[in-house]
């Protein structure tokens, strides 16, 4: 058997699914800094972030048998679980004010990356940070509030004291620009591998009879294992 540390994420999950505990430990060691960092960025509390990060890794371990590589990369899957848990925790602790600058100041948007440096071009995380950094501040705030804190456009409009239409426009423009930048970087071409486009679930047929409600599947990034 190959050393656990050198196996791909998918291979580790596959091994975990059949009870390979060494693979599980390797998986935890590979992802604990990412999940803890993401949770800390969102909730800003070390103890709570540890609980969130641990719960995300526990769920990934226990749900390894049902991981579907056609829907999302392992990284996306694990980080999405972490984000959803963090958002749940935030919503239950409403006393904590949300400020997207908290995330921005933690280093997500780093302006000190040199575009001519080839090292960062091979790092998907750095490229996403650069793309975010290129957005106008108001678009970046709206996008961070939506992507990391799970706020709707209506909630963003209230938090930022802007019209609802403006909030929607900022979200749309911000995400569209990041998409264009990453596409120009070739990040969707599989060069990095972390952003392999997931396959969308099949969309149900329209109801044939009035009142027959279609069953709407959740898009991949909304998957919330429990």
């Amino acid at each position: 058997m190959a050393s656990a540390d050198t196996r791909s994420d998918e291979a580790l999950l596959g091994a975990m699914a059949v009870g390979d505990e060494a693979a599980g430990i390797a998986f935890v060691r590979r992802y604990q800094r990412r999940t803890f960092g993401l949770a800390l960025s969102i909730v800003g509390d070390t103890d709570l972030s540890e609980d969130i990060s641990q719960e995300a890794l526990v769920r990934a371990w226990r749900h390894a048998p049902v991981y579907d590589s056609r829907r999302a990369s392992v990284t996306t899957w694990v980080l999405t679980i972490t984000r959803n848990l963090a958002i749940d925790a935030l919503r239950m602790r409403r006393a904590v004010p949300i400020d997207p600058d908290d995330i921005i100041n933690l280093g997500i948007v780093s302006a000190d990356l040199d575009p001519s440096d080839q090292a960062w071009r091979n790092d998907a995380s750095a490229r996403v940070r650069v793309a975010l950094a290129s957005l106008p501040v108001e678009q970046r705030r709206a996008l961070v509030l939506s992507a990391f804190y799970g706020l709707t456009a209506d909630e963003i409009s209230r938090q930022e004291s802007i019209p609802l239409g403006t909030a929607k426009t900022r979200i749309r423009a911000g995400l569209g620009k990041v998409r264009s930048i990453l596409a120009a970087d070739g990040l969707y071409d599989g060069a990095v591998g972390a952003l392999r486009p997931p396959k969308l679930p099949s969309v149900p047929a329209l109801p044939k009879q009035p009142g027959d409600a279609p069953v709407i599947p959740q898009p991949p990034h909304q998957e919330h294992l429990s």
Partner: protein
Amino acid sequence: MTYGPDHFGGDADRQGSPAGCELFQSAAAELALGSLTGADRSIALAHLDDCADCRSLLEELSTTADALLLAAPEADPPAGFEVRLLARLGRNELAPAPAAARLGSVIPLRRRARVILAAAAAAVVIAGAGIGLGIAVTPRHATQSATPAIRVATLRSIATSNIPAAPVGQVAITAGKPSWVVMTFHKPGFSGWVYCMVSESGHSKVLGSFWMHDGSASWAVPLASSGAAVSSAQIEGLNGAIFATAQFAS
């Protein structure tokens, strides 16, 4: 501004008409980010049924939205993270027991705590047999002044104007070093984070937070003290709402 049926052009535009596509594209970012809700989301998804271009757009935007999470900086978790995680998974044999458990770390009940739970369960049975709530169970040969081996109290929900308080779980505290708090708690239909607090020598102390799934949880956490001075326990939601309290017999 909201997106109603008219916004997407009604049934006619579900077939991928230019007007329907334009309106879908105005909502696609929110859909990709997961923040489009209710009827708007349902209608937007319905538009995808016959529009390959908009499906492709949504795939790319969803991938972009997922990629944003990569921007979060990595951070080193606190010391002992891995050990506590493995304990949480019930894989203690792969990691040494934490020599000094971090106060506030919660170890869901697994193999290591089974002996403690069995003892606590025995005490609960005795309590349920009519000896009383908050009973202290002493060893057979214990003297009157000895610290009880296990003290058990019933967790009770908070009474409201319509609903009286009711038993919702048990808390047991074992004597010894370390002393352990073992707890079962039920809150039907509830999933989420809760805090456990105890009052010890007149001071309130957070023992830790833990995740409840489908209204039920069991867990154990070591105490730095002997536990003899713990007079009450309390379960709270993350928003500070008190879910249940337990009083130990003095």
